[in-house]
C-alpha cells in the first residue's frame, strides 16, 4: 500500500510502497517483483538509509528461533525489536552484548547499522558478537555468512545499510548478568579537557558516555556529566531489589502525542534544559544503583520524543574523529556552540579500536547531537563535514540524511571495496535507498 514514510528524524518524508513478509518465499517474491527496494525495520535510524521508493518491512518477520539459556546464544528473525529480546533474556540472566540508546530498533537494523553502545571501548560493536546470519541477496538466494564463511558478505553487511541484501536471521552471543540493575557513577566535568581526562581515568568501566552541554562558552566550554556503569551484583542491590534481582518494577511511559510547534525549541529553551540537566547533579559525584532501562534507554521513557522537533523534523549529526584529534573535536564543538543551533541531546563517547570495512566506529571520539531542520542548516553541516574530513573522521550513515557523496567516498577508507561487494551480491542493484543513490553507492544509470 502507498504510504508516507519517514524515519526517526521525520526528515525526509517520501511516498512509497511498503510490503511485509512472514515467510521466506514471500520475501523472494517481493525481491523478484520489485527492483529498487530497501529493507526497513522499526524506522529508528534517523535519516534516509532505509527509505526507498519500495520498502520491505521486516517487522512481521519477528520470531525467536532458539535461545540457549545455558550458554547465552540467541537466534531470531531480523524483524524482532531489542525490547522484545530483553523481555525474554533478562529474566534468565542474560543481556544484549551491545545496545544502542534505544531498544526500539530491530535486530536486522542493529546489524545493518552495526550499532555501538556505551561499552564500545571494551566490547566492540554489535558485529563482534554475531555467530552467523542469513542474508537474502539480489537474486533471492539465502546466504549464510559469518566472519569465517563468505566473510566479504559478512563484513559488508555489518554496517552496510541493507545494501548487500535483506538480513533475515541472526545468531549472536549474549552477555551474562546477575541482576537487571546498573551500578552507575555520574561525575561533573567543568569543561572539555576535564571530561576527556575523566574518560581516560575511567576507561576500565564497561559502560561510559558523557552528556555534553554544547552551548556553553569560555571556561565552561564543553562542560559535561560523565556517566559510567557496571552491571550490579546482587550484593549491591537494596533489600527490595534483591527480592527479584532480574526483573524491573513496571513503569508508565509518557508519550508526546503531536509535533511541538517549532518555537518550543530555541536557543533559550535548550540552554534552560542544559542548565537544569547540569545542575540537577548538585554534588560533584553521584553513585547509585539504577534499573537498566533508564541507564541505557533514557529517552525511550518518552515515546515519540522526536516530535518535540516539530514538523520540519531534525537531523542527528554524529561523527567520529581519531583519538589524536582532540583539538579537532574542540574546533568542531566550538563551531557548533558559536552557531547556537545545537540540541539538548549531545552525547560524547570514546570508541575503542575497531577494524571494519564500512561500520562507523574507529578508535577515537564520537559526538552526536540533533539539529532541527531550518534554513541554512545544511550549508552549515556541509562546513562541519569538511572539518570532520580534514581531521580524518567520518559521519555515521545510520543518522545521515544529507551528506554529500564526496564526503562519504573520501572519509570511509573501505568505501570502494564495500561498493564492489555490494555490486556482487546485490546484482542489478535491486536494493537501493535514497541514501545509497545520494552517496552513489548504487549510482543511478544516466
Amino acid at each position, binding site marked *: *500500500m*502507498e504510504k508516507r514514510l519517514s524515519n526517526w528524524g521525520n526528515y525526509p518524508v517520501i511516498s512509497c510502497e*511498503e*510490503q*511485509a513478509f*512472514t*515467510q521466506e518465499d514471500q520475501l523472494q517474491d517481493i525481491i523478484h517483483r520489485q527492483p529498487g527496494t530497501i529493507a526497513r525495520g522499526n524506522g529508528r535510524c534517523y535519516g534516509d538509509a532505509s527509505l526507498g521508493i519500495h520498502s520491505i518491512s521486516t517487522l*512481521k518477520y*519477528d*520470531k*525467536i*528461533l*532458539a*535461545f540457549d539459556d545455558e550458554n547465552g546464544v540467541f537466534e531470531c*528473525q531480523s524483524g524482532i525489536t531489542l525490547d*522484545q529480546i530483553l*523481555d*525474554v533474556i533478562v529474566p534468565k540472566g542474560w543481556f544484549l552484548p551491545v545496545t544502542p540508546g534505544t531498544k526500539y530498533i530491530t535486530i536486522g537494523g542493529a546489524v545493518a547499522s552495526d550499532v555501538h553502545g556505551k561499552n564500545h571501548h571494551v566490547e566492540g560493536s554489535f558485529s563482534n558478537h554475531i555467530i552467523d546470519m542469513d542474508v537474502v541477496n539480489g537474486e533471492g538466494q539465502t546466504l549464510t555468512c559469518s566472519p569465517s564463511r563468505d566473510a566479504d558478505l559478512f563484513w559488508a553487511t555489518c554496517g552496510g545499510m541493507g545494501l548487500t541484501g535483506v538480513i533475515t536471521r541472526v545468531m549472536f552471543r549474549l552477555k551474562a548478568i546477575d541482576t537487571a540493575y546498573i551500578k552507575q557513577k555520574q561525575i561533573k566535568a567543568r569543561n572539555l579537557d576535564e571530561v576527556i581526562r575523566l574518560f581516560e581515568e575511567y576507561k576500565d568501566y564497561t559502560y561510559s558516555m558523557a552528556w555534553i552541554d554544547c552551548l556553553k562558552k569560555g571556561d565552561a566550554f564543553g562542560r559535561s556529566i560523565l556517566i559510567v556503569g557496571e552491571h550490579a551484583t546482587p550484593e549491591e542491590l537494596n533489600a527490595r531489589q534483591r527480592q527479584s534481582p532480574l526483573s524491573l518494577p513496571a513503569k508508565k511511559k509518557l508519550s508526546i502525542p503531536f509535533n511541538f510547534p517549532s518555537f518550543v525549541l530555541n536557543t533559550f529553551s535548550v540552554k534552560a534544559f542544559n542548565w537544569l540537566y547540569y545542575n540537577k547533579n548538585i554534588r560533584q559525584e553521584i553513585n547509585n544503583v539504577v534499573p537498566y532501562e533508564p541507564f541505557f534507554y533514557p529517552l525511550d521513557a518518552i515515546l515519540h520524543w522526536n516530535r518535540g522537533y516539530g514538523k520540519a523534523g531534525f537531523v542527528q549529526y554524529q561523527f567520529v574523529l581519531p583519538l589524536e584529534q582532540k583539538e579537532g573535536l574542540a574546533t568542531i564543538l566550538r563551531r557548533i556552540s558559536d552557531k547556537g543551533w545545537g540540541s539538548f541531546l549531545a552525547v560524547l563517547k570514546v570508541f575503542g579500536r575497531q577494524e571494519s570495512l564500512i561500520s562507523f566506529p574507529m578508535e577515537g571520539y564520537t559526538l552526536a547531537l540533533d539539529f532541527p531542520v531550518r534554513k541554512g542548516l545544511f550549508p552549515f553541516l556541509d562546513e562541519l563535514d569538511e572539518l570532520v574530513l580534514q581531521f580524518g573522521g567520518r559521519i555515521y550513515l545510520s543518522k545521515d540524511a544529507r551528506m554529500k557523496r564526496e564526503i562519504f567516498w573520501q572519509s570511509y577508507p573501505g568505501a570502494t571495496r564495500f561498493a564492489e561487494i555490494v555490486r556482487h551480491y546485490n546484482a542489478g542493484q535491486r536494493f537501493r535507498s535514497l541514501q545509497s543513490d545520494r552517496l552513489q553507492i548504487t549510482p543511478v544509470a544516466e
Partner: protein
Amino acid sequence: MSSILILGASSDMAVAIARKFAKEKYNILLAARNTAALEALQQDLQIRFGVNATLHAFDAERFDSHAAFYRSLPLQPDITISVFGYLGEQEKAQQDWQEAARIIHTNYTGAVAILNVVAEDYASRKKGIIVGISSVAGERGRQSNYIYGSAKAGFTAYLSGLRNRLFHTGVHVMSVQPGFVYTRMTEHLQLPALLTAQPEAVAGAIWKGVQKKKNTIYVKWFWRYIMLIIKTIPEFIFKKLKL
C-alpha cells in the same frame, strides 16, 4: 494449564492471538494447511512465553477430514477460535466459479464443518468457548465484495444460532467483527487509519471479550454504529450507492 486451538494459524491476526493467549499462559494448538511454515511461530511462543505449542495440519476446504482432524488432537482445547478466511477477488469471483467457491467454502462451509464437530464435543462436555472471526462485510451486501460478504453473513448467522443452542449446555460462543485490520490480506488496500486496527488490538479485544463472555465484539467500538447506519439506509437508496 488451559489451551486454545487456533484454526488458520498463519495469518497476522492468528499470530497476535496466539501471542496474547500464550502470554496469559495458555498452551497453543496451531492448525493450518502448511504446518512447516509455522515452525518458527511454534518456537517463538515456547521461548517467549514458556508455554507448549503444537502444530496440526488442517485444511478448511477438506470438510470430510475435519472430524478426524479434531479427534487427532492431543487434547480437547478449552477454547477454539476460527480465524481462517479468504478475501478473494470479487470481480474474479463473479465470472470464475472456482474463485467464488473458494471464498464461500473457506469463509462459510469450512467454518461450519469444523465448528459443528467442536460444538458437539463441547456440548457433550458441557463446557468450552467457541470464538468465530466474522466480518462487518457480512452485515449488508455491497457490490465491491458481496460474495465474501455473503459467506461471512452466513457465518455470522451460524454463530448466533450456535450461541443460542449451546447457551443451554453452558458453552459460550463469541462472534468477532474486526472491521479493517492491518494484515497481509489488506496490505494492498488503502485503509482509513482511524478505522483500522492492528492485529494486536484484535487479539486484546478477543482476550477481554472471552473473559467477559461477550456475545459479539467490534474491535473498534464505532464500527457497531457505522454498521448500524449502513444497515438502516433504505434499500431504494442503498442500491444506488457505489459501496
